């Protein structure tokens, strides 16, 4: 009996031991699960990092785009201002040209008048 008890005990012990302790397969399983978990974690981390990087990049892009847009807007504004300025200057130039033409006309008229006057005076001076 004792023997059988022992046997039972041993068996039980063995059974409990065996039941209580993880088997290699379990270990492997656990290990595999652990690995999986860690891999997932790593993946998640990576994804998070990527997302962060992407977010940062996106931020940078947006900033650059903003900057570009700003620059473009400034350029456009500058160009518009320049165009306006050019238009103004052209107008001024046209005005000046008109004034010059007027002055030239006046000068010509004055010269003609002067010449006519000189002619009249010369003719008068030729009288007795």
């Amino acid at each position, binding site marked *: 009996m004792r023997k059988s008890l022992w046997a039972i005990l041993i068996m039980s012990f063995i059974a409990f031991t065996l039941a209580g302790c993880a088997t290699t397969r379990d270990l492997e399983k656990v290990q595999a699960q652990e690995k999986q978990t860690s891999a997932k974690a790593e993946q998640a981390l990576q994804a998070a990092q990527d997302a962060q990087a992407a977010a940062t990049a996106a931020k940078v892009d947006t900033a650059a785009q903003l900057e570009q847009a700003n620059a473009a807007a400034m350029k456009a504004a500058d160009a518009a201002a320049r165009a306006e300025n050019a238009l103004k200057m052209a107008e001024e130039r046209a005005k000046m040209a008109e004034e010059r033409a007027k002055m030239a006309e006046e000068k010509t008229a004055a010269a003609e008048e002067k010449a006519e006057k*000189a002619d009249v005076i010369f003719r008068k*001076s030729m*009288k007795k």
Partner: protein
Amino acid sequence: MRYIMTSDRGGSVRKRCPARQYDGKLYEKMISDFSDDNKMFFLTPGRISARIFASDRRPLFFAFVLFTFLYGCALPRNAPVEPFPAPRRPEPKIEQKKAPEEKPLEENIERNDFPVAKEDDVVGRLAAVRIEKGDTLPDISRHFSLGIDAVRAANPVMDIWAPEAGKQAVLPLSFILPDVQRKGIVINLAAMRLFQFKEDGNSLSVTTYPIGVGTEERPSPTGQMYIERKMYRPTWYVPASIADDHRKRGDPLPPIVPPGPMNPLGEYALYLNKSSYLIHGTNKPYSIGLRATNGCIRLYPEDIRKLYESTPVKTPVLIVNQPYLIGHRDGMIYMEVHLTPAELDAEAFDKVYAKLKYLDRKRDRRIDWKAVKRVLAEARGIPVPIGGGQKQSGKDMAGIVELKRPDKFYGKPEIPEWQIEGWYILAADLRNEKDAAKLAAVINHQGPHIPARVLSKTDSHRVIAGPFNNLNEARQAAKRLKIDLEIEGILMEPARK
């Protein structure tokens, strides 16, 4: 016979060379060139045949021939070949086109005396002379015995006092004779010309001079007159009307002006039978061709002398006013107009229009009315063909004679050298150089002569009249400048008394 084979841009050339070139050093050089495997072969026909046919080089030769045949003689192209004289080709005879021979310019042209053909009414030729810097139309007018207004009308765009250098001034030395009997003296007031007809047997000639005539206020008389008397160095008895005018201008005249430079009659006078009217010279030669007299007829001093000498007392003088003249020459009909459309003389125009209509009705003498219209509009005072012949109508400048420019224009006022002891008048200080030059020219052409020049600084051009011998002369000149030209001159004392 020897041959040289040389390359010539990829093709074989066989040049026959003169034997003398194979002698001496040149020959040896060629041999050495050949032996050095240079890019030249120097062979004789004997050697060629011996080398080729008496040896085992036939295949090589044939290969060479084949190669050459197929490829052309591919001898090196850049062989340093001594330049052999290429066979001389007769140089092509290029007939060099001869430059069109420039017509030599005529030095002289008849200005006053012309023969008159029975059927013709047009005398003289149009001419042109090149302008140079400093020339004025009054100087050109006087030199060619023309009136100032006539030259101005012929050159409507030219500045009378500063014509552009390099341009050609047209000289209206062609005239349509007035439509009157050709006898004695005929004066056409509109053309401002005097015609003196001379008959010699069957031939008729005319001498013509430009004249100065009366103003609109005091026009010259028209009608038949004659020379009553002649006078050398006449005295001028100033008419009351002229004395009045002068007094009003602040320039009172003495009742009698003796002969001399201040006498406006000049040196010669022909008295007309119509009281107070004379044909005379002048002390203002640049008034000829202007309407500037009190009714008298003025001539250049050089012309009045000739007229005076060739005109006897009792010579008939017919004064007419014909602004529109029609004349014939060599079958052509010419028209000369002296009034612009603005100055239209309706009565005279109606007469000339009727004449043109009459001529147009004649089958052989069609009038080119377009040309008539143009002549009337331009009023250049020169005869222009308007129909009746082969010559193209309206081409007034065809056959114009280009004259050599004289070294000096006759009568051109001379300016004495600057004198330190002389008195001067500062007539004007102007910014424009051209204006200053014109003013100086106007002063220079006064009668009696007042010399004037332009002294230029960087930004001003001073017109200085003078030199005058003393203060009195300077004052007299200043007074004349003021009265005649409205110039307030400033007297300048001599720099060294």
